[in-house]
């Protein structure tokens, strides 16, 4: 356990001196939080958007609570779209940190002395994973908390507030977020082990946000609406995929191959 704590502490000491990582961890959550709050602020007391409800997908109209008028329903719809963008955080933050974690050590020639210590592969990977997952979860949850407080301050209609913070988003943020972070980290660690250029690692790891963007555009275009059942299904699939990815990450991390072939 001490070795894992050491790796986490070492990673944080190193990684938070990197401006790109700092930007991703600090500013991305702020931007993603500011967008839905900005929408809510801009739509406060807006009455001329009743007609806009016709632009919403049919499925969303069905999901909209019955006691909300068209304008309030549109407000909930619009914020829900950006809440999905909020789900990029658990992918983008750990991917940025984890992508650099192994390849960074290769570039600075610190990997071989590290691998020569009695640390096991599992300890090393857990340490590196936690160092990437924890900031992602903290930043996502903190951003969501700020959003929840901001929304509470701005929205007077309790039904609208309840619709904005319904159980699907709580499940998404509290459960799906960490699962997505684990997925991003395991994928990024595998990439980082197998490349020798940090930029390549970051670019390949950033592909992880494509599925979230696909879901975002799918929902915007009305292909489907993320409801509670879909989010629970996504969580279950992610649990299985994460298990497979963790297994693969451990298998892929072979000291010999990394030192001799992917140096």
């Amino acid at each position, binding site marked *: 356990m001490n070795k894992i704590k050491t790796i986490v502490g070492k990673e944080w000491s190193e990684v938070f001196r990197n401006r790109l990582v700092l930007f991703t961890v600090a500013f991305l959550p702020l931007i993603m939080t500011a967008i839905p709050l900005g929408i809510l602020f801009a739509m406060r007391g807006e009455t001329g958007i009743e007609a806009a409800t016709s632009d919403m997908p049919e499925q969303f109209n069905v999901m909209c609570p019955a006691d909300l008028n068209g304008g309030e329903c549109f407000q909930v719809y619009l914020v829900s779209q950006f809440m999905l963008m909020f789900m990029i955080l658990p992918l983008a933050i750990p991917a940025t940190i984890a992508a650099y974690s192994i390849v960074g050590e290769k570039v600075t020639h610190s990997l071989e002395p590290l691998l*020569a210590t009695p640390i096991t592969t599992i300890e090393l990977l857990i340490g590196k994973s936690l160092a990437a997952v924890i900031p992602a979860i903290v930043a996502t949850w903190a951003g969501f908390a700020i959003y929840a407080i901001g929304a509470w301050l701005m929205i007077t209609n309790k039904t609208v507030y309840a619709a904005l913070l319904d159980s699907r988003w709580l499940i998404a943020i509290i459960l799906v977020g960490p699962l997505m972070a684990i997925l991003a980290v395991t994928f990024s660690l595998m990439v980082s082990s197998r490349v020798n250029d940090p930029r390549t690692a970051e670019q390949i790891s950033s592909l992880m946000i494509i599925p979230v963007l696909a879901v975002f555009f799918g929902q915007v275009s009305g292909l489907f609406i993320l409801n509670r059942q879909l989010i629970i299904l996504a969580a279950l699939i992610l649990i299985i995929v994460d298990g497979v990815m963790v297994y693969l990450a451990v298998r892929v991390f072979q000291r010999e191959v990394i030192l001799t072939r992917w140096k």
Partner: protein
Amino acid sequence: MISTQNLTKQFGTVKAVEDLSLEIPEGQVFGFLGPNGAGKTTTVRLLTCLIAPTNGTARVNGFTIGVDDTEIRRSVGVLTETPGMYDNLSAERNLSIYASLYEVKDPKGQIEKYLRLLGLWERRNDPAGAFSKGMKQKLAIARALLHEPRTVFLDEPTSALDPEAAHLVREFILEIKKQGRTIFLCTHNLDEADRLCDRIGVFKTQMLVVDSPERLRSQVFGRKVVFHLQRAEEALVEGIQAMSFIKEARQVDNKILVTLDDPEIHNPELVRYLVGQGAEIQFVGELRHSLEDVYLQLIKNS
């Protein structure tokens, strides 16, 4: 203590290390010499359990590679060929990370001990990235020794160091030798190997020869004694050549160069002969080939 039996490492069709059988007793400084690409670093990686052998086996500090890898890593210290540090972190923080990974009992004490021994204590709070190459190398040596390993692998410890820093590192190696540790030293600096090593192995995928530097000289070139005379004559050389224990004798100006196996026993007889022949001897000395000559000869023959 290091012991290998037919240790072999093959990458695809390329054999990097072939049938390496070696015994290095505890407390010995073993110089591992060879040209670039000879397989020296691969051997160090095999013996520190960073890579697995294709064939053969080895024991390090009583543990078997491939079986007791964690114990081996715990009991050895490694200075890699390019020892990277965490440049953004201070020297002290760099060492504290490794002290924790090696489960050092008194990390603060050990860090202070080695930083002081290597003259880095005053710079302990500076980021490692601000260090000169020599200081980084010393910091990497401190890192390799922090957990008091029984065996230390040093891959090019003085390469690219200025003479003063290199001298300090060599003195330090002798100091840790006195503590009874086994030192496996890979170096291209043959003078350094000559000065530090009890035994030397010349390696080029296979071990070409293993012995003490003195015996290697003797094996490769024989021992040569030089007689500086007032006036050397051909007849004297012919007389010496006729002696049964002489391998070779030749004249160079007023010197006679004699190759023989055991000068300690036969020199008095040679001196008696020369004096008896009326030669006036100015000096008698042994001609020492440099280890570089020995090495180049061995590599050429391979």
